[in-house]
């Protein structure tokens, strides 16, 4: 199975075409990105895709930043194939979107120029969270079908008076007898050897280097902590509330299925201290999501399929985007109750965040300030594609466990537990 990649493509929008683009985005969202002119449903390995507009603004020093169009996709490797599909199957849609941007290779230009342009406008994420690394779209869809087949089979049978082991054996036989489910007998293949080797090296190398540099790092850390605390004491509560029109716009694209897209954008606090802190925290976040939180949960939050932290405009700005289950209120509650520390460490380096203490404390725990700053900085996602919109991350993990439980020997208690997954 492939590993997953987060693709971000961002390009400035021609000043006179922003209004037109806004309208196009709304229309594209209504039509959906699954079918023509994008056809993401027919592309291989696209989990999610989205477009959103970052409006024209000025940075903290007053320098103008033009409006830009952001495309994001969460796809199975390889990147090469995805870019080829963007310039191939999805070409018409991609053309329609990016022709609002300056310098997009217009009609008459070939596939190669398009791919080169997309590559040039690719922005790298500092960290990319994948709910379960290596679980591709094909696997997710197959395992959902497997579960449905087993559920339907159970619906048709009367199993009263039988043991769990007997019912499990029957289900195993049923799957074995269906040629279209033959794949379920084997475990899913892991990501490529190259990918695994690279990750293994990274997993060991980062702590090794940090450990070796500890004698140098420790005094720096102490000074940093003091400076940070002094900086934090200047924090003011975030008193703004989201404007009604903004709320209506953002909410207008939410809660149509089990899953939702989420995007925020904001400025990074000025000054070297915060810039460095931000980069260091994201470096550690990258490590955490790659090697610690890479299966089923982001530090206890089990509702996130993908998430990414993307610095913009030379680290002056930042966008965070995710695909998650449920409503934004519940999402925020999870942030506050479960991963407040992570949110604080990252986003307190951005403007308008509720005051923190020692980087990790306070902040998100100030419930309403936190929810208000999230809503105020949320960016509407008018056009969004989800390959399996009705499956929660929890469902997907459960489906994988159902498949895994088809193999091997089980005692009575294990068989009972496995049957409870259905």
């Amino acid at each position, binding site marked *: 199975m492939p590993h997953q990649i987060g693709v971000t493509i961002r390009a400035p929008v021609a000043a006179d075409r922003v209004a037109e683009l806004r309208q196009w985005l709304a229309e594209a969202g209504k039509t959906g990105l699954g079918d023509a002119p994008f056809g993401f449903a027919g592309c291989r390995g696209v989990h999610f895709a989205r477009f959103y507009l970052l409006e024209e603004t000025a940075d903290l020093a007053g320098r103008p930043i033009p409006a830009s169009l952001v495309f994001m996709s969460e796809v199975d490797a390889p990147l090469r194939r995805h870019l080829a599909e963007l310039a191939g199957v999805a070409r018409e849609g991609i053309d329609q979107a990016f022709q609002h941007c300056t310098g997009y290779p217009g009609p008459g230009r070939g596939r190669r120029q398009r791919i080169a342009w997309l590559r040039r406008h690719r922005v790298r994420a500092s960290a990319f969270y994948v709910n379960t690394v290596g679980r591709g779209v094909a696997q997710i869809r197959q395992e959902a079908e497997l579960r449905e087949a087993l559920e339907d089979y159970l619906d048709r049978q009367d199993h009263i008076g039988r043991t769990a082991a007997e019912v499990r054996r029957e289900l195993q036989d049923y799957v074995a007898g269906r040629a279209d489910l033959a794949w379920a007998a084997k475990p899913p293949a892991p990501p490529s050897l190259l990918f695994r080797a690279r990750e293994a090296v990274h997993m060991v190398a980062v702590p090794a280097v940090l450990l070796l540099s500890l004698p140098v790092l420790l005094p720096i850390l102490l000074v940093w902590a003091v400076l940070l605390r002094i900086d934090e004491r200047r924090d003011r509560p975030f008193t703004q509330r989201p404007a009604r029109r903004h709320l209506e716009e953002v*909410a207008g694209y939410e809660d149509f299925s089990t899953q939702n897209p989420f995007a925020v954008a904001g400025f990074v606090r000025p000054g070297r201290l915060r810039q460095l802190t931000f980069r260091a925290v994201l470096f550690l976040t990258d490590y955490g999501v790659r090697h610690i939180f890479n299966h089923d949960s982001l530090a206890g939050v089990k509702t996130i399929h993908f998430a990414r932290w993307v610095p913009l405009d030379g680290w002056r700005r930042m966008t965070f985007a995710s695909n998650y289950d449920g409503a934004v209120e519940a999402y925020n509650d999870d942030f506050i109750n479960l991963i407040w520390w992570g949110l604080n460490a990252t986003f307190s380096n951005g403007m308008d965040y509720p005051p923190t203490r020692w980087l990790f404390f306070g902040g998100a725990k100030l*419930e309403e300030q936190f929810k208000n700053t999230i809503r105020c900085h949320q960016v509407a996602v008018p056009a969004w594609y989800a390959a399996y919109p009705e499956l929660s991350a929890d469902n997907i993990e459960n489906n994988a466990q159902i498949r895994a439980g088809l193999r091997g020997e089980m005692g009575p208690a294990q068989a009972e537990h496995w049957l409870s997954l259905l």
Partner: protein
Amino acid sequence: MAAKLDLDDIQGLIARGYRNLPHARFTIFAAHDAAAGRALLSWLLPRVTPAGRFAGTSALHLAYTAAGLRRLGLAESVITGFAAQFIEGMTGPNRSRFLGDVGESDPRYWAWGGPQHPPVDGLILLYANSPEVLDARQAELATHLDGLAVRQVTVLDTLELGNNEPFGFHDGISQPVIQGLSKATGAARAGTPGGRVVPAGEFVLGYPNAYGQLTSRPLLQAADDPRRLLPRDPGGSGAADPGRNGCYLVMRQLEQDVDGFWRYAGHATRRPDGSDDPGARTALAAKMVGRWPSGAPLVETPDRDDPRLGDDNDFGYHRADPLGLACPAGAHIRRVNPRDSLDPRPGTEASLAVNDGHRLLRRGRSYGPGDGAPTTAGNGNHAERTAQGDVAPSRETGLHFICLVASLARQFEFVQHTWLNNPTFHGLYDDTDPLIGSRHLRGATFTVPARPARRRYRDLPQFVRTRGGAYFFLPGISALRYLEQLPAGVPAASLSPAMTR
């Protein structure tokens, strides 16, 4: 952190559900202009019942929509300090989608409060110890409303308060216990999921909530309250605090298809020979509810009803029934109040603490055939008679659902969306609340865990539909006094909304 509750300023409905005043009638009104609205408020004000000691034979409460507050002359700059959902109202397209008010529950089909109806200003809740007292007070109210040119948009009758809701189940057993009220003293047994004492700020604005913070509400410059009618911001800003001692009141008229519910349960549990199995029918209905008709929780008595446990509220789920073999994870009461089954660390204090942030103080009353008719005794037998098939199809039956909360988003709307109508709640795939959930697009499955394997009920009909509703604010009595003397057309300058501290 517990602050002393100002019981003389808080409306009594927050402190009690008036079990001793079993007759109730709710009047939804709209005033023609500010003068009429204010005249009504002046007449009602001395009649509003505070939360302090109560020994009367009737009680009256008063709540306003955002439109009603505007009508009284409250400036837009102040109104923007209230919750966004309150200002938007219950029927905006985003709200309807979120609340599951779609399909046959679409506000377009509502009996009141829908977009096709005139806007609602407020709600008068009357409670009495006898039908005669209720009728007399209602007649007095109606006369005044007529005289003041205030329209009665609708008058909602209720059934005499019995133990059971219209489906036939003992209802209203589990209520959050509010810190600072006398009930809290006895209920504070640590660690029992049923006896949780919840910080007052979860239900009354101006007191610390479950996060130890003050939920935002509008604040006024002290100069805008020269007569010092309003309490001052307990956060210490010196601002006048019109939200303090008030709360949001959610009202929804929920029609219950009692016949359909029991017919479905009967049909789904027929014996192989096609004959009825009354025991299985009741057992399936109980699985949907999570309690037996007597109220006995399935977690405590999974196989048969035990009326001795009818008021039992002292249980959790995680240790007793992690897989839902007694009480399915999708059962109504396990959804609206999952107790200790939530992440992180189910079965622990941390789980209960998360649950505390999503509690509702319920004050609903049933309605149906016999409501407003003084001689009808209770509603408990309707469901059973329906199940036995000896009740002819009757006029609408249901619940005038009312709940009181400090946060519409984190409490009422969260429970409605994330727990009730969420097809993937607690690892499920296509199950909304079997009793009251929406089946508009998905959610028509009910999964009953069992050994060796679960049983799935498919194509569940929708048993409840929304027939009306609105978001109200139930102000403190001093805030009502402030509203009464507002000069028409003079805008008050508000501060930024109170921030949590």
